[in-house]
């Protein structure tokens, strides 16, 4: 009796395995663990990008889970492993606590890709990580500023929430210039990504009648706040103005300000990693090796920086975030 039951179970298992394999030939199952689109304009574009690339038309069966909380993300990842996905795509809320889940995935033969955010673990636990180098992003912007060959650099530096990745990267490059004496720090203050606070900071500099000719704001919103203060004070800015305005994120509305010549520069930390991962998955499926990885199994996204004098409508449509 027992033998018969065992046989039946074995047969059933074989059947299910066969059906799974039969399915697999047609669609690739991916599980995406990401932060919710409400987090920021960046995330909104990021989520949209993944939805577009990993669609049914492109031959994917996609399951997604959004959370800002690490434990909820971990649960979702475990669920995806149980569901038997082929690939797991993760943008982790926190860098720690993922080792066990990633090992599980490896044992089940699930390929793991990290995007946007790194995880503290052995690089062998994931196939590749597509990430931004925040420091490089800051350097790109500062190099652009240096290339403007101004007589003097008196910079108002408005920082994002202190300690965040974006703030550290965007601040680092500029701090190096302050230390070398090439640029003068008029004020360096955090507005914690708050547009209105940025305006107040610039107002205080204007009220103190301290001269300045560059505004380096670590995101678009704060740049907009800074510009509002300039407008109230009758100070010209932008391509033909007295003050150079720099922002980050490349929201569509911000790029339009650039196009109108009211701002000078907008840097972007690219939220478009889906296409790169898609190509890598195709390679893995074809049995080829993934190329271009560094020692940490990373691929660094190419960061864009737009100069108001070179920006086109097409750039806005292609690279702009939001509406």
């Amino acid at each position: 009796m027992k033998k018969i039951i065992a046989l039946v179970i074995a047969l059933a298992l074989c059947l299910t395995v066969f059906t799974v394999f039969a399915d697999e030939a047609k669609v690739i199952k991916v599980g995406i663990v990401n932060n919710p689109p409400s987090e920021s304009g960046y995330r909104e574009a990021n989520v949209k990008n993944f939805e577009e690339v990993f669609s049914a038309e492109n031959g994917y069966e996609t399951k997604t889970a959004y959370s800002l909380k690490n434990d909820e993300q971990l649960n979702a990842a475990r669920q995806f492993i149980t569901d038997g996905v082929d690939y797991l795509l993760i943008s982790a809320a926190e860098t720690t606590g993922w080792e066990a889940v990633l090992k599980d995935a490896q044992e089940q033969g699930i390929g793991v890709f990290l995007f946007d955010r790194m995880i503290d673990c052995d690089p062998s636990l994931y196939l590749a990580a597509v990430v931004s180098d925040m420091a490089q992003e800051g350097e790109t912007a500062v190099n652009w500023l240096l290339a403007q060959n101004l007589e003097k650099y008196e910079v108002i530096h408005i920082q994002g929430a202190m300690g965040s990745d974006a703030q550290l990267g965007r601040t680092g490059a500029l701090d190096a210039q302050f230390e070398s004496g090439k640029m003068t720090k008029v004020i360096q203050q955090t507005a914690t990504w708050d547009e209105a606070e940025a305006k107040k900071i610039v107002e205080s500099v204007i009220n103190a009648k301290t001269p300045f000719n560059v505004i380096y704001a670590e995101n678009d919103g704060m740049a907009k706040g800074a510009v509002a203060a300039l407008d109230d004070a009758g100070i010209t800015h932008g391509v033909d103005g007295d003050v150079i305005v720099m922002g980050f994120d490349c929201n569509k509305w911000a790029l339009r300000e650039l196009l109108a010549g009211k701002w000078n520069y907008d840097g972007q930390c690219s939220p478009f990693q889906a296409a790169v991962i898609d190509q890598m998955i195709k390679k893995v499926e074809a049995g080829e090796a993934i190329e271009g990885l560094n020692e940490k199994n990373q691929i660094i996204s190419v960061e864009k920086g737009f100069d108001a004098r070179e920006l086109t409508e097409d750039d806005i449509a292609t690279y702009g975030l939001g509406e």
Partner: protein
Amino acid sequence: MPADNRNKSSSFFQKNSQLLIPFVAIIILVIFNLIRDPGFFSIAIVNNNDGYPVLQGNLVSIFNGASELAILAMGMTLVTAASGGQDISVGALAAIAGSTLVKVLKSTETITPLTVILGILACCAVAMLFGAFNGMLVSVFRIQPMIATLILFTCGRSIAYWINGGATPTVSSPIITAIGSFIPGCPVPTPILIVLLMGILFFILFRTTTMGLYIQTVGINQGAAKLNGINPVGMKLLAFVLLGVCCAMAGTIGMSRLSLINHETLLLNVEMDAILAVAIGGNNLGGGKFNMIGSVMGAYAIQALTITLYAMKVPSTDVKAYKAIVIILLVVIGSPVVKDAFQKMKNRNGRRMLARKEAT
């Protein structure tokens, strides 16, 4: 005659002894800044980039920047007085209100004065509804205000996101710019005028109705109020609904300043500053007697402190620590223990002087 004058001034502060703390705080900040930079409070008229003359200077920045906080402090004073607790969801509610306004503005092709008025009415209505929700939890279900409003504090900014579905929707209209910065031709920033308007509205409300007295009564002794025919549930509800209106106005100003709404950062952490303004204003956070002027002065004192720290170029990482030091001082000076000690000292001095007078 000088003796007469002294009596008058002392009686003003005896009647409004609450106002002493915010008054002293502002005076200290003013003196400190004048020593640091004699030109700190100078006001100039400059032409803005639209070509209109506008006022400019730290004083303008302080009054302008504190507008949302001042309006929220007015409403928070009422809630504190009636319920003996604080609403910690005002920032989130302002974000919801601002998002509602943006939603209405974006629903039409062109933004006319009528759409703006409709939008502001809609955002007032939504904020009053949420205020009523908070008020109901507090008055009918008798949940502690901080716990009751914790719900909206937690989910409010998500709701604000759902309303527009985008991270930072922007609107562009000269009318919105006029609300957020300057009406063309008027050199005073519009937010300051809105605060003035709200203040006048509350003044009229207190003068023409018994609302102020009733709210105080409920806050001092709910049971006694009930026995005297005042409905405590209704009064608490009213206070929360009025705070809702304040949130709507604060959200409108905050959104109009830069013609965009960032649901995550709009008036972030303002609830703490609003509660602080009420405390600095000498109001008892346990409810009862209140003084709205004190709270508004408290709001301006907080903004003056922030602007001072900016002007001093205090590094961003240290700002909060400096702010905390000043706040500790203010709160300790305003504490009952220190107040009693001062009172005793005053009495002793008075008696001594009286004794001296009698001796001569």
